[in-house]
Structure formats: C-alpha cells, structure tokens
C-alpha cells in the first residue's frame, strides 16, 4: 500500500503518481484524477484590480493529514475503488502553479469518477487549509464559497454552518 496523503511545499508530478497507482495493480481498469491550479482572476475578468500576484496556503499540521485520511476511509465506505492518492501543496504559489491533486483507481470508471468528486468536495469544505491572495490592493484571505458547501451537502457531508 502506498502513502495516501502528502502535504508538501514541493511541486508534484500527476502522471508519475498515476503510473505508480496503475502499474502496481493489474485489477485497475480506470483512473480518475483531478488537478487544482492557482487562478489569476484578472485573466477571467480583465480587471486590473483582480490580479492575483501570488497565493499563500496555510494549513493545520496534523489535523490536515488526519482529516484527509478520514475522508479516504469514508470514500471507501461509499464507493468501490482500489486506491486514492491526495497531494496538497502549502506555502507560496504563483498563478498557473499546481495546488492539489486527487487520483482514484477502480475496475470501471463509474466508481473512480464518483470517489474523486466526493474526495474533492470533502476536501474543499472539511480539510483545514486557508488561501490568502496577494493582489494590487494587498493581501486578502479568500472567502469560503457557498457553492462548495452545497456540493458537500449533496453527499450528506456536514457543512459546519451550525458551528457559527
């Protein structure tokens, strides 16, 4: 069994991670992966004030790893997949940099598609990471998105709204 969760400042190689997952297990007939990257909002809106010069990612060491391990266990209860690999970067990142990857293997595509989406929805709302964007107006913490809570709620995951 390979390491399932890595929190690191270094970059990662998605193709290498997928190779490791599929080459080690001939039962695998499907690999589904997600890659999240740093977006420069100016490129979307054309507005100079929306520029993201860089991004700092903070996390809660210890809790982060535990919460992602728990979410992979929860995914195994729901979906029929073989392995999941999650890598999340922390520290200073620049636009177009890779932030996070999730890769899931299964016999057929359906289960790995579902497990991959479940893991990302879970990570977005439960794993203790915080993004701070450096913009022309200064540094700003990114606000949590209601749409992420709604995505998590589809799976019956707690959104912690009651803990306000």
């Amino acid at each position, binding site marked *: 069994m390979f390491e399932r969760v890595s929190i690191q400042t270094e970059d990662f190689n998605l193709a290498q991670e997928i190779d490791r997952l599929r080459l080690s297990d001939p039962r695998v007939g499907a690999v589904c992966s997600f890659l999240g990257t740093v977006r420069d909002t100016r490129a979307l809106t054309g507005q100079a004030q929306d520029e993201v010069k860089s991004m700092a990612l903070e996390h809660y060491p210890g809790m982060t790893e535990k919460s992602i391990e728990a979410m992979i266990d929860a995914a195994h209860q729901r979906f029929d997949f073989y392995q999941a690999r999650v890598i999340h970067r922390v520290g200073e990142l620049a636009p177009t940099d890779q932030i996070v990857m999730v890769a899931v293997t299964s016999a057929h595509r359906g289960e790995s598609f579902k497990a991959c989406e479940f893991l990302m929805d879970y990570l*977005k709302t439960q794993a203790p990471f915080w993004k701070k964007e450096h913009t022309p107006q200064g540094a700003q913490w990114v606000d949590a998105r209601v749409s992420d809570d709604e995505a998590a709620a589809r799976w019956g995951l707690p959104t912690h709204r009651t803990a306000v």
Partner: protein
Amino acid sequence: MMQVHLRYFASIREALGCGSESWQTVALTVGALRAELLERGEAYDCLAADKPVRMALNQEMCQPSDALTPGCEVGFFPPVTGG
C-alpha cells in the same frame, strides 16, 4: 480549572498575533471556552458569536456543545478554503 492548548489559524491567527497558547479555563465546553476568550479583550472580537468561526477539538471538527478535557487541543479558524 483545567489547562487547554489553543491553536489559531489564518485570519484569526493574524488578528490575535499568535498561533498558539496555553490557557487555564473554567469552561466545560468548546462553545463556553470561545465565550470566555471573548472576555479577554478587543483582539478576541474575531471569535465573536456573529463571526463564522470553525472549531476543532483534538484536531477534529467539533460542535460548541462538545466537552473539553484536561490538556485537550482546541483550534479556532475561519471556514476552510483549500483545494
């Protein structure tokens, strides 16, 4: 009184100017501890009841009604924004 270990992250860590501290509390629950910290001064307004603060007890997301235990770790932070 019991000693608890407090951890602060992101905007809450910045508002308080510290990432962790030890604290002697008379509170029995995480919610009561949050109310007690509010009494410590203006800087702790970042934990006010109308702010979207999330809490973790021993590194697991928790509810205000969850009970504190001696030496436990309580984390206070804003809604998460990773991924």
